[in-house]
């Protein structure tokens, strides 16, 4: 029955989003437009060559048919012709290479930037650190599991929505320092024409100067493991004043969070919050039902860690486990989140330890 509903929902959901886009976006930066123009230029050159070559070919196919009595001629060499069709394509190629090189040089502009942001790829989320502002947050997929598994209707930004988008000011040069924490990722926003690989142990740079405020969406474009398709990039471009306001809000929020950590929570509050944290940060590997994937990711149910000593349980979440896919979550989760998810894991999925921990006791 649920299957039938699922299918019905997905069938209804799709026609609503009919979208037959066939070309690249022009984008919202001077550079993205330059690249778009280059793309169209080469496309039209290819079309012209294609029409000429296929034209002669189809002319031959229709004109010189044996069934129409065509008799083949005997020539099979002509040095002049062969030289001509070696030289002319070479000239066309040089004509293409000149604007391409000019665009490339624009992309490699290294003049000083107004805002600098370190972008770090994690399996499977992005971390944004504003280098001059002391703002540091993670950006996770916000689409619900139910939408992905077809148990709920898909919203228009399905798979292209995050909890915390990157926020940048309009008309300012923003420089991205792109690196990775584990495997190779690639940070791509099509409307900016910015795509750079995030490589562990290396730092790459790229930059953007966006001309229109708005929300721009992209995705990770380098296969980075199981949830590669589920780590979108969302960038919110704000007017200068709005951006300043956002920066101030972020700082205020950080102070508020610090206060939160010293509050006392009840076990039910922690479990309720922990479920959300679990689904966002843990369910990707350990699965929404806590069963894990045999051979790859251990189950939470009956795990020696989630049903063992509290300190060890906290330690593995805070510091990760060397040589495995288990990351250190101390940078990603607040003390409240860690206390919540630890409490949740110990009291869900058939685990019933009955104990819980206060955020103030979490040592990061």
């Amino acid at each position, binding site marked *: 029955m649920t299957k039938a509903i699922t299918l019905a929902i997905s069938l209804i959901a799709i026609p609503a989003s009919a979208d037959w886009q066939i070309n690249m976006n022009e984008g919202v930066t001077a550079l993205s437009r330059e690249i778009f123009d280059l793309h169209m230029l080469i496309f039209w050159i290819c079309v012209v060559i294609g029409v000429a070559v296929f034209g002669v070919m189809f002319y031959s196919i229709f004109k010189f048919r044996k069934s129409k009595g065509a008799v083949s001629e005997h020539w099979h060499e002509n040095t002049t012709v062969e030289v001509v069709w070696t030289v002319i394509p070479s000239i066309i190629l040089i004509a293409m290479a000149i604007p391409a090189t000019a665009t490339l040089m624009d992309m*490699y502009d*290294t*003049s*000083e*930037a107004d805002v*600098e942001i*370190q972008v*770090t790829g*994690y*399996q499977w989320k992005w971390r944004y*650190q504003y*280098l*001059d502002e002391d703002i540091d947050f993670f950006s996770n997929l916000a689409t619900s599991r139910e939408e992905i598994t077809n148990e709920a209707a898909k919203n228009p930004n399905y798979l292209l929505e995050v909890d915390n988008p990157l926020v940048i000011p309009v008309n300012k040069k923003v*420089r991205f*320092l792109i*690196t*990775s*924490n*584990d495997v190779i990722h690639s940070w791509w926003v099509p409307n900016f024409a910015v795509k750079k690989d995030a490589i*562990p*142990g*290396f*730092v*790459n*740079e790229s930059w953007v100067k966006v001309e229109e405020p708005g929300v721009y969406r992209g995705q990770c474009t380098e296969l980075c493991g199981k949830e590669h398709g589920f780590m979108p990039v969302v960038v919110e471009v704000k007017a200068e004043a709005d951006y300043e306001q956002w920066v101030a809000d972020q700082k205020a929020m950080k102070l508020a969070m610090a206060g939160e950590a010293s509050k006392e929570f009840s076990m039910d509050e922690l479990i309720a919050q922990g479920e959300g944290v679990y689904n966002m940060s843990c369910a990707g590997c350990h699965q929404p039902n806590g069963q894990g994937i045999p051979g790859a990711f251990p189950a939470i149910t009956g795990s020696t860690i989630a049903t063992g000593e509290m300190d060890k349980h906290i*330690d593995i979440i*805070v*510091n*990760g*486990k*060397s*040589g*495995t*896919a*288990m*990351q*250190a979550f*101390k*940078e990603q989760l607040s003390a409240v989140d860690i206390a919540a998810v630890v409490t949740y894991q110990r009291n869900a999925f058939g685990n019933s330890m009955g104990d819980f921990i206060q955020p103030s006791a979490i*040592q*990061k």
Partner: protein
Amino acid sequence: MAVQNEKQTKRLAVRLATAALVMFGFGFALVPLYDVFCDITGLNGKNFNQGPAQIVAVDDSRTVKVQFITVNPADMPWSFEPTERSIRVFLGEDRQTAFYAKNPTANWMVAQAVPSVTPSEAAPYLHKVNCFCFERQPLEAGADTEMPLLFVVDPELPEYISTITLSYALYDLTGEQKVTQVKPSKDKGRVSL
């Protein structure tokens, strides 16, 4: 005819097999070749100069912004950050800065910082006189430290470069250290970058 042909064939096959073996070796030779190539071209942004600098003249007409960022790989529990996010230096000027590291775990650990520079064209002009990344850094359980970096930016730095970003990724080598106890990192050319 046939016999001679067979001999020829055998000889050719042996030669081709040798060529295949040579190419197998070449695959491995690509590793040091790549390093040399990167050294010349700056392909991977790791061709820094190391050791005492030869530069004497300070060019006090031009400054460059040197920016420090840090990355903690997935399973590294240390806190690790620059004490200064960015500094403006004169070209040719000796500058010292430091990175803060803390081992919050209950175990003795050892780490190796791996540097990277962007734009990669700037790497050959960033001269590290002394760097904590030259050696592995041990820390006792719960201990913290400030690790020094002494560097000079070569006055020859191309005009178009206005910012140099130096990034360090800090890797946990505790496991490896236990196996290959006293192997100075200088021996492994690729480690001592």
